[in-house]
């Protein structure tokens, strides 16, 4: 059956949380009422990336991009757009600067600078339908490898492409495959690391939800190149939708003979199974991940031996991250020489980032390596929320650092970020504004590391705990200048002596905030003040009697009844009762509430 029109509705986790599945149901009902169900097809796709404006609905073939759609809007979309061919103006994206509606996503600031390779199919196809993937050259890379290329040729192609691991380390993928291919064993394994643990990052999840077949195809290509017949996906149990879509995709691939015995009539066989993570950040480290898959505590072990020599069940194992794998089919089809022309000298291709925090356009983006932070934050991200001032951007998650104004024009790639005192990491990018306290942010990350430390090596187990305690002391206003020295010295020792990547990088948030925001530490220690007004112990809420008109809004919103005052008279805060939640300050329309 050929449809005249397709309505694509985002079915990613973010949009589903805003009732996108109800939009689909309503659209289908409305189409049915008008007897249009054979002419217009409604498809639930993967993430479009523009999560800030979700749920997203896109009408094809005219590429109309509707934002923040509600289930009740379905009827109007069908009546106006589908039947009368008139766009529903009020649901179009408004350019915040020009104040005009933009109907085609190609012309939106958010999409203009993006280049989608790993996300090429997200938001275009129904992830639960293998035929849609095949229609977009799906599985032709696998066919090309098996029927026309020798395993070493595939490895050479990947090496030539310059692709580096997207999980954080940035190790050259082709080289990793070559190592694994050199060891002989009765069984080898291909593992997909889908244990995305970086808080505030959802790149891998979106790929698995939006384009699961690209991961499956790449795993099979890897299996063919290194001589493995078994693939395992280690996925977070917290990602139910991604798990379900991967399962569906594996099942469909098996039915189509793209997984299983003698793929494409060759003597190559490949199967994929899922293994579930159970919420341990350290399991993103490959040796820890392998132990977890074997049913043990996910504790890392010393390398060597590398997994390429002795990994899962002591067999040669190649571990790649989801995004790395999603690039593979595109490289095989378009060639290494296409891929290595994108990006910078030592970082080829693109990188997916989860842009979040105090930014106007929260979402999932993919940009060529070498794009600057300024372009990402101001052009794609649309600048800082509520017109506030940019303060820092955190990259690399708990292992990364905070970059400031002076780093905004640094072209993003593995080496530049490292040289600036942060790292690429898996692609979390959190933007912070003037209201964020950098000491608290460092403390937040350390709290995470302390919780997630597996406890095996002393520097990480005890060292990070001490770092956290010292930071806590500073935010309480009890810090001394010696504490600052302790933080620096201890950080260096932990970096040098911890066993695995988690411990070796955990002091980065501390060091980078001390480097870039030294004055803020001083304010906490010497003046006992938190310039951003975040550290509760250093705060005192106060109502300016000159500005207060006595509307009583603050008192009604105070959760502990700490605000008293007569109507139309200035109000007062009972500091003994006040829990410093800031609700009054948030609600006051006259800016009468302040902190001091």
């Amino acid at each position: 059956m050929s449809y005249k029109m397709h309505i694509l509705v985002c079915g990613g986790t973010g949009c589903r949380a805003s009732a996108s599945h109800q939009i689909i149901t309503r659209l289908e009902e409305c189409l049915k009422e008008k007897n249009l169900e054979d002419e217009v097809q409604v498809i639930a796709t993967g993430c479009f990336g523009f999560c800030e404006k979700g749920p997203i609905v896109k009408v094809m073939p005219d590429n109309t991009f509707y934002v923040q759609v509600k289930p009740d809007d379905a009827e109007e979309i069908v009546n106006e757009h589908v039947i009368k061919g008139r766009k529903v103006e009020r649901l179009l994206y408004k350019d915040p600067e020009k104040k005009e509606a933009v109907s085609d996503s190609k012309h939106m600031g958010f999409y203009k600078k993006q280049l989608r390779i790993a996300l090429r199919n997200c938001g275009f196809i129904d992830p639960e339908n293998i035929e849609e993937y095949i229609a977009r050259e799906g599985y032709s890379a696998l066919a090309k490898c098996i029927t026309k290329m020798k395993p070493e040729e595939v490895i050479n192609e990947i090496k030539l492409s310059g692709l580096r691991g997207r999980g954080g380390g940035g190790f050259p993928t082709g080289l990793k495959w070559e190592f694994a291919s050199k060891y002989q064993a009765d069984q080898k394994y291909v593992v997909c690391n889908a244990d995305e643990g970086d808080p505030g990052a959802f790149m891998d999840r979106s790929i698995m939800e939006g384009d699961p077949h690209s991961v499956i195809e790449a795993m099979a290509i890897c299996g063919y190149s290194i001589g493995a017949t078994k693939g395992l996906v280690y996925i977070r149990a917290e990602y139910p939708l991604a798990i379900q879509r991967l399962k569906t995709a594996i099942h469909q691939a098996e039915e189509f003979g793209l997984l299983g015995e003698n793929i494409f009539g060759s003597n190559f066989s490949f199967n994929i199974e899922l293994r579930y993570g159970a919420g341990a950040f350290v399991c993103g480290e490959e040796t820890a991940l392998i132990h977890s898959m074997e049913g043990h505590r996910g504790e890392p072990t010393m390398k060597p031996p590398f997994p390429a020599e002795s990994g899962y069940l002591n067999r040669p194992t190649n571990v790649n991250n989801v995004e790395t794998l999603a690039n593979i089919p595109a490289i095989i089809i378009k060639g290494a020489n296409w891929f290595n022309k994108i990006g910078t000298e030592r970082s080829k291709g693109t990188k997916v980032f989860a842009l979040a925090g105090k930014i106007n356009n929260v979402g999932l983006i993919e940009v060529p390596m070498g794009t600057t932070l300024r372009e990402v934050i101001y052009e794609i991200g649309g600048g800082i929320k509520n017109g506030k001032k940019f303060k820092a951007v955190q990259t690399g998650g708990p292992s990364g650092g905070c970059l400031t104004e002076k780093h905004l024009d640094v072209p993003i790639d593995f080496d530049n970020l490292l040289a600036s005192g942060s790292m690429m990491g898996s692609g979390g990018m959190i933007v912070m504004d003037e209201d964020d306290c950098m000491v608290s942010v460092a403390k937040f990350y350390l709290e995470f590391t302390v919780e997630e430390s597996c406890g095996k090596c002393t520097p990480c187990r005890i060292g990070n705990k001490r770092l956290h305690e010292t930071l806590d002391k500073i935010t309480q206003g009890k810090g001394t200048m010696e504490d600052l020295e302790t933080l620096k010295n201890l950080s260096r020792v932990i970096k040098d002596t911890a066993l695995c990547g988690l411990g070796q990088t955990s002091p980065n948030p501390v060091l980078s905030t001390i480097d870039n925001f030294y004055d803020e530490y001083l304010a906490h220690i010497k003046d006992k003040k938190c310039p951003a007004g975040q550290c509760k112990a250093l705060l005192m809420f106060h109502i300016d009697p000159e500005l207060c008109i006595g509307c009583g809004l603050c008192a009604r919103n105070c959760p502990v009844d700490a605000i008293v005052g007569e109507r139309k008279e200035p109000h007062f805060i009972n500091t003994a009762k006040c829990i410093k939640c800031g609700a009054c300050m948030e609600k006051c329309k006259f800016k009468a509430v302040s902190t001091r």
Partner: protein
Amino acid sequence: MTQITLAKCKVDQLVKLCEEFGNQPGELINILHKAQGLIGYLPREVQEVIARQLNIPVSKVYGVVTFYSFFSMTPKGEYPISVCMGTACYVRGAEKVLDEFKRILKVNVGETTPDGKFSLTSLRCVGACGLAPVVLIGEKVYGRVTPGEVEKILKEFE
């Protein structure tokens, strides 16, 4: 070994579950996932049954259960509340929202109210960062939550 007070049918189900995985110690994490789905949490007795079935020490099972944050040894409330404390939610004020839940429910993170109605946990990123800060109650997602809304949200469950 302590006396098993778990209902016999539950014990039988656990035994069957282990058998489905061939009583393989390597399948321990998969078994624990299913067992938690079956019982709701993983108390000591459940761990003992599994250890016996797989012929491994209980300490090994306990070691794994306590290592991973997904596994819990305390029962969840009727309405489990999870406040996202991923970085994106944190910078948009999730900590204040969590504090408000703690204050109203008078429980700490990881605890359940005495009437068994609400349990409070924090989790790391559900991936709905566009809606930050995010609170999950059961399957329901609340986005862009402010501390002032917490009381109203809880009233929905009375």
